[in-house]
């Protein structure tokens, strides 16, 4: 039975609206900045076969893959008949979810006529889950047990009644219990909202109609995706890049090798030649590889359409166990997302010869997070400042790259406002600016990275975690690579030290840290860049005269200079 076209349209918009509503509810009542400012969360509806019906707009693309994986484990362990109305499940198991343990999945079943018809689910980044280090950016861990508490598909509410034992365990084993439990409450409520809304929908239209609509929506998304893949010439496309190291063995570069096989309307992404899993925390589980493959696929095929299971039906993945993106337990996963922007960029680079008019040069290629932590002078209370800053994106076939934007994995993740950081934490931010000369030269140059300087007002420590310093964001078709990421720690006495990766660097009052993020690579030969565009960049202070001379062979006209 095919539903009425207008009903399909209503259901399509309704399920997306519910996911967005869940996201608003979570975001507005959350207790930690990673959720309410950075938007490190996702919300969605998952069917009883763990397929994605809808997911909220915005938030993190790296969560494209995996709400289903988390729910699937619960369905297998608890059984569909083992759920009761009012149940809420908590899940962050490292091996199954494949992400750092801070990403907590909460979901609740929606019942209709006595049967589970859908799960409303969300995942959000808690500020802490115990473990040996606080905040992100630590490279100290070598196995999952260093990284905190694991919950594998446990009922935190059973038929509406809170599991006090589990609640107490959380309260006693995380560093910021008020924040974590507040976020947990917000997540539970967001799921309950999704459950309520979906219940209204199936009561209004009937479960068969709604399900038939959902299948039509999936089929339609699949058709659109296939139509795009059809247009790519069949063939095997390969590319390679590398990451600096895993933070433990500093001399070992990590090989990122991908093969993209296009065959008719089907695309297979083969990660078999990817680097092996590593001792440091840069590993992810299977869902890490899946997220990278799905993001690359989605932004090629249907960049504007809402996301659902059907979008990915034409996509296959080859990913053997033991690889960086599908690590065996008890691998450390603390920085699971760090390799993913580079993996996605490498997939796109592989396809550049086939899709010359669509593929941009390499972007900043890392996650760009850092964290400060310490104990407040006034009251001895622990604090944790986390922020994510953008960098440049690659030049494109028709225009320059975007400036100061987060990586392709982070969607509309935002940097925290300077004012908010200064209100809440003991720092003065002395400078926050675009970084001159950071974009790779090209006919269409790469976008610019960012520089931001913190002055500490008291004793504190900082985690710095920069990547892609040995394999900078690349140019395409003759474009140049971009400036690399680095941090400069400047002591009160004026001594300076350049840092790429560092965990728990101690700072005293008056010490400064400046983060300089990478730009994007250039697209096309710099020598054929439009002269007015170069002059414009110089006038705005984006490109220095010296760099313009060196990279573009540009000589400012005398009369212009005199103006």
């Amino acid at each position, binding site marked *: 039975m095919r539903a009425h076209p207008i009903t399909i349209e209503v259901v399509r918009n309704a399920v997306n609206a519910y996911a967005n509503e869940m996201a608003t509810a979570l975001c507005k*009542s959350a*207790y930690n900045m990673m959720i309410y400012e950075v938007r490190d969360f996702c919300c969605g509806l998952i069917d009883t076969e763990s397929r994605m019906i809808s997911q909220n707009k915005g938030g993190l693309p790296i969560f494209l893959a995996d709400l289903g994986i988390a729910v699937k484990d619960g369905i297998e362990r608890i059984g569909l008949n083992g759920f009761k109305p009012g149940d809420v499940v908590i899940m962050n198991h490292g091996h199954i979810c494949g992400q750092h343990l801070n990403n907590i999945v909460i979901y609740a079943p929606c019942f209709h006529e006595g049967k589970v018809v859908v799960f409303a689910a969300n995942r959000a980044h808690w500020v802490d889950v115990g473990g040996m280090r606080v905040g992100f950016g630590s490279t100290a861990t070598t196995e999952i047990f260093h990284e905190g508490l694991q919950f594998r598909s446990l009922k935190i509410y059973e038929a509406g009644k809170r599991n006090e034992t589990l609640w107490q365990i959380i309260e006693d084993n995380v560093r910021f219990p*008020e924040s974590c439990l507040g976020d947990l409450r917000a997540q539970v409520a967001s799921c309950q909202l999704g459950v309520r809304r979906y219940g209204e929908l199936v009561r209004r239209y009937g479960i068969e109609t709604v399900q038939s609509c959902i299948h039509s929506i999936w089929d339609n998304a699949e058709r659109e995706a296939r139509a795009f893949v059809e247009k790519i010439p069949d063939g095997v496309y390969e590319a390679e890049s590398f990451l600096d190291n895993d933070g433990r063995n500093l001399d070992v570069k990590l090989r990122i090798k991908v093969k993209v096989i296009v065959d008719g309307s089907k695309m297979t992404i083969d990660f078999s030649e990817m680097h092996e899993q590593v001792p440091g925390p840069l590993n992810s589980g299977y869902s890490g590889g899946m997220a990278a493959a799905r993001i690359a696929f989605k932004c090629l095929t249907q960049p504007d359409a809402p996301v659902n299971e059907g979008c990915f039906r034409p996509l296959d993945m080859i990913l053997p166990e033991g690889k960086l993106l599908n690590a065996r337990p008890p691998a450390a996963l603390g920085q699971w997302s760090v390799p993913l922007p580079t993996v996605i960029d490498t997939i796109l680079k592989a396809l550049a010869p086939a899709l010359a008019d669509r593929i941009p040069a390499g972007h900043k290629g890392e996650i760009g997070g850092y964290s400060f932590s310490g104990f407040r002078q006034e009251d001895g209370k622990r604090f944790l400042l986390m922020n994510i800053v953008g960098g440049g994106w690659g030049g494109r076939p028709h225009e320059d790259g975007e400036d100061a934007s987060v990586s392709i994995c982070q969607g509309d993740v935002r940097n925290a*406002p300077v004012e908010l950081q200064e209100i809440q934490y003991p720092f003065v931010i002395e400078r926050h600016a675009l970084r001159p000369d950071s974009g790779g030269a090209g006919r269409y140059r790469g976008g610019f990275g960012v520089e931001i300087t913190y002055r500490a007002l008291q004793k504190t420590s900082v985690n710095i975690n920069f990547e892609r310093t040995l394999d900078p964001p690349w140019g395409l078709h003759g474009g140049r690579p971009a400036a690399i990421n680095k941090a400069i720690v400047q002591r009160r006495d004026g001594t300076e030290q350049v840092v790429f990766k560092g965990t728990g660097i101690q700072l005293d009052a008056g010490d400064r840290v400046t983060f300089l993020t990478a730009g994007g690579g250039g697209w096309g030969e710099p020598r054929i860049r439009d002269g007015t565009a170069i002059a414009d960049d110089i006038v705005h202070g984006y490109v220095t005269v010296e760099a313009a001379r060196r990279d573009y062979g540009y000589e400012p006209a005398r009369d212009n200079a005199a103006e």
Partner: protein
Amino acid sequence: MHAYADPAHEAAAGAILRRRLPDLFVTLSHEILREFREYERTSTTTLNAFVGPRVNRYLGRLEGFARQARFGGKIQIMRSNGGTMSIDQARREPVAMMESGPVAGMIGAGRLARLMGIDRAIGFDMGGTTAKTSFIIDGVPPIEEGYLIGDEFTGQPMQLPVIDIVEVGAGGGSIAWCDQGGGLHVGPTSAGAEPGPACYGRGAEDPVVTDADLVLGRLNGERFLGGDMRLDTALAEAAISRKVAEPLGLELTEAALGIVRIADTAMSLAVRAVSVNRGIDPRDTVMIAFGGAGPLHATAIAREIYVPTVIVPKLPGNFSALGMLMAEWRKDFVRTLFGQLGRIRPLDAEHAFAELWAAGEQALMRDRFAATSGKFEYAADLRYRGQEHTIAIRIGRPEDLTSATAVSRARFNEQHDRRYGHAAPDQSIEIVNLRLVVTVPRMDDTIGDWLSQSWTPTAAAEEQRRRVVFDDGVGPIEARVLWRPALAAGTEIVGPAVIEEAGSTTLIHPGDRAAISRWGHIVITLAERS
């Protein structure tokens, strides 16, 4: 940085600029917005500075003309928040006028929806360049804390309260054009008032939606603007033939119908979005259509998205302007007041109330209202400790924050539960801001009252007949042509029909049933689609 809390540096910089460059339009962030988040505040302030000089000159001229013509009343300017402000305030804070024209129409539509007992209404306003739509629940169009000028990816944030309206670039003046591949497009470029549609006879060569409506017989060239302006059908036909029909190898009627179809589709998507994006089925709503071109296109759009009923209010062509005359003077104030609910120092709370009250009184006096004429409504932004986002909860006096807080606490818990689905009654609640909204009720609400005044025909006119194209493949069919001012309350009309009046034309498709309500509004019940 942090000028929302302490504007001393900004004020000093502003003072120097204003002293040294007295002719410069200077705008300071704390004068526009007293909220943290440097990006949103910067963007809003920059927008104010960007539009400031031009709007300021324009409003100055407007006031000059009005005074020259011996206008002795107060000149009020519509705000984005659905209220009005004085012209002086508008000259300082022009960014607060953003989108205010469409807002006024939605205020009017909200009033009408409440009067007619419609809880879910879609306001639809189509003019010359764009169509706007808003979802109205219980008579109130939703207010957003801010909005993006431009699309959601590249738009500039404007962080002042604004009525939530979706806009689409299709209006009566939208130009129809062909691309090289043989595709027909309508808009987003508009012919504007000059040269206007080809049929205005002012030398325009590009055909627009209005030309197509005329060619299809939907508009009456002899009775446009009540007969004050003749429309030249031959010119409209020539423009459509040359620019659309010939390049695409279409018949004239086919081309005209194509233009209207494309415009209607673009508008349907926008109108559908405002309801279904909220998860509300358009079949459960009523459309209130106005603007010069709204009633002409509303029934086709409503049918497209299964809205069963369309209401065309009295004087639809002037409805946005009338909406302004239903809006109240309004100003919003905010002051940071940080503390714990029930534990805040009474002196601090009293001080904040006094400060806001004084600011409200001052604003009233500056706009020459008596202090006693204002309605003062206070609210506190509350949150559970540790949260960031707040909810504004209505309060009456300082004691609601200091001592007898059970009511405020219960209100907050209830609101939190209603909005987000959970509450934590045993957690401590923080106060972040104190807010004040001052409104001045209209001295006379003539226009509001007029909406529900009994309707009596104001003119007599003979019924006419004309051939009109409604649909593809059917060709022109004979339709009744009625003069709206002559129709008595209770009149029922079954389409095909055209109801004409001075500022607008309502199209009744075959099978649709229109009734003149006792207040004179047209209520159209759409025929079931086969």
